[in-house]
């Protein structure tokens, strides 16, 4: 590696458990964060915010949520789209009913509401596992989409069935609406992701994370250790749904600005986030970020390459994108089921020894 970690010994259990035990790693992360917080806003423009950075951050949040459920607790869910819808509609209803309510509070509350819904729809996991559970979560996906279509109260009786985000500001900075500057919106989303990313990491390295992983690995043995499956699974659904709900809220309020439920939150969304989790790495916080980044950037790069460079029709590019996504999923499942996160670890191992082969 560019720096050696030899000679850095841990003298207390505390420092042994830290997220970035190697001193230089901490500097690198600090550098990334500095760039993200200070440099990016200076260079950002509408296109970059809307096409790349905002979806990346928001999907990272959703992927974090789903990873907690699927990667750490082993409960498969295909209902992500539906839960994002819950977050979005909750935000919409809250902000239209209480215009004075701070957007941050709105989003946090939406997360809580989604968490409650998640626990409700997660109850079947106490009886069923594996793809049976996947099918049960499909029930929630289809039901929620139908619900938000059917019950007009949810979209304030708007004739088109669409929900639109009114302009809102936080502490004087315009976050949503036509006046909002991309830098501000970006920093808003970034703030959420950074804080909740840290929280997620803290939870999974402690007692609750271990509880989830025990259920995932061998739930019978977990019970014999004294882990209550009810607590473990429901807490996983709750936390996961919270994250996905906040992501859905951000998706609607800060990024899209307007949404129609069948388009924005259908089953393809569920698959997309699941793919991010797989490609990034199941059971890895870092993986959630990497997977989201990859699956947000890949279509953009592909489209730019095919449409702008090769002059291929946009429709065809879309088909190629679909095919490529499928190929990538299969590729990762065969070659590295633990996704980019594991590949990154392996790369670090190799770089540690570089230029020696072993």
């Amino acid at each position, binding site marked *: 590696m560019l720096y050696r970690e030899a000679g850095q010994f841990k003298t207390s*259990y505390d420092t042994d458990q830290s997220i970035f035990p190697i001193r230089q790693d901490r500097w690198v992360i600090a550098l990334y964060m500095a760039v993200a917080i200070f440099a990016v806003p200076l260079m950002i423009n509408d296109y970059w915010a809307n096409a790349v950075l905002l979806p990346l951050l928001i999907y990272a949040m959703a992927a974090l949520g789903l990873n907690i459920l699927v990667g750490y607790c082993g409960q498969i869910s295909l209902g992500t789209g539906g839960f994002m819808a819950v977050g979005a509609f909750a935000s919409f209803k809250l902000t239209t009913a209480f215009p004075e309510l701070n957007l941050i509070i709105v989003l946090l509350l939406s997360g809580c509401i989604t968490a409650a819904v998640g626990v409700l729809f997660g109850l079947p996991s106490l009886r069923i596992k594996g793809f049976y559970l996947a099918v049960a979560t499909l029930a929630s996906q289809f039901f929620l989409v139908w619900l938000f279509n059917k019950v007009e109260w949810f979209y304030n009786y708007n004739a088109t069935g669409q929900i639109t985000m009114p302009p809102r500001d936080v502490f004087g900075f315009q976050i949503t609406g036509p006046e909002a500057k991309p830098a501000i919106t970006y920093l808003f989303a970034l703030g959420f992701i950074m804080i909740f990313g840290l929280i997620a990491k*803290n*939870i999974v390295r*402690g*007692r609750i994370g271990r509880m989830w*992983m*025990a259920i995932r690995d061998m739930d019978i043995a977990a*019970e014999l*250790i*004294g882990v209550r499956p009810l607590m473990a699974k429901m807490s996983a659904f709750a936390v996961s749904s919270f994250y996905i709900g906040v992501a859905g809220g951000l998706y609607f309020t800060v990024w899209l600005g307007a949404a129609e439920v069948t388009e924005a939150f259908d089953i393809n969304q569920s698959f997309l986030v699941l793919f991010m989790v797989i490609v990034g790495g199941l059971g890895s916080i870092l993986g959630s970020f990497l997977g989201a980044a990859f699956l947000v950037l890949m279509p953009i790069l592909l489209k730019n390459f095919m449409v702008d460079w090769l002059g291929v029709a946009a429709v065809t590019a879309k088909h190629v994108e679909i095919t490529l996504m499928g190929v990538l999923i299969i590729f990762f499942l065969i070659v590295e089921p633990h996704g980019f996160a594991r590949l990154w670890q392996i790369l670090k191992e190799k770089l540690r020894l570089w230029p020696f082969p072993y």
Partner: protein
Amino acid sequence: MTQIERVIGDTLLKVENISLGFGGVQALSNISFDIKEHEIRAIIGPNGAGKTSMLNVINGFYHPQEGAITFKGEVRRTMRPHEAAKQGIARTFQNVALFKGMSTLDNIMTGRNLRMSRNIFWQMLYLGPARREEMEHRHRVEEIIDFLEIQAIRRVPVGKLPYGLQKRVELARALAMEPELLLLDEPMAGMNVEEKEDMCRFILDVNEQFGTTIALIEHDMGVVMDISDRVVVLDYGRKLADGTPDEVRGNQDVIDAYLGVPHDEGEA
């Protein structure tokens, strides 16, 4: 650590008239025996005798159709496994039920789960109470890691360890629960002579230093005769004999069961 003078206490666990059947198969028929505090009790018998089923009944995984279990004075027939864990019963498994996706350290830390209680909000921040609790338990776990001499494999994902070490980690996890009654299901299966001697030593140390009562299923007769205080022999779900190792060794029924004397005419 001080050597505690081992005194066998009163009855810790008593099973009475336990019968357990699955569909057409009667796994256990009318089994009764007791386990005294601080003793090492072996449960032996040919394959299929119902030994594992007996352990499963004790720790709540199987529910017998008849009979009662008295543990620490409380009588019950059935119990959920995590309640058994709460009451102080820990166990290991024939097929090593470790959490393969986690490291050794994490696996053992899960054993502390019942004793950790800081709720999710403190966990999120990883400050103050949550952190202190984590360190406290880490300390205890490290003591167990030292005791079982597995320091080197702390961070290794358990799925990568050789079988013998996995069994040791499983024992560590059970010890992390600080149980009063430890159920060991063939802890030495698949080990070579050296590994068996190590495991024997650990089991004896656990019994002597922590005073843990141990119920042990084992096939190696040498081990059984050496370390156990009393022995129960099962065969085809029935109790054949019950007593000290010497008494059991001389029992004709036991000899017949193990050597396979014809039960019916014409059977070898």
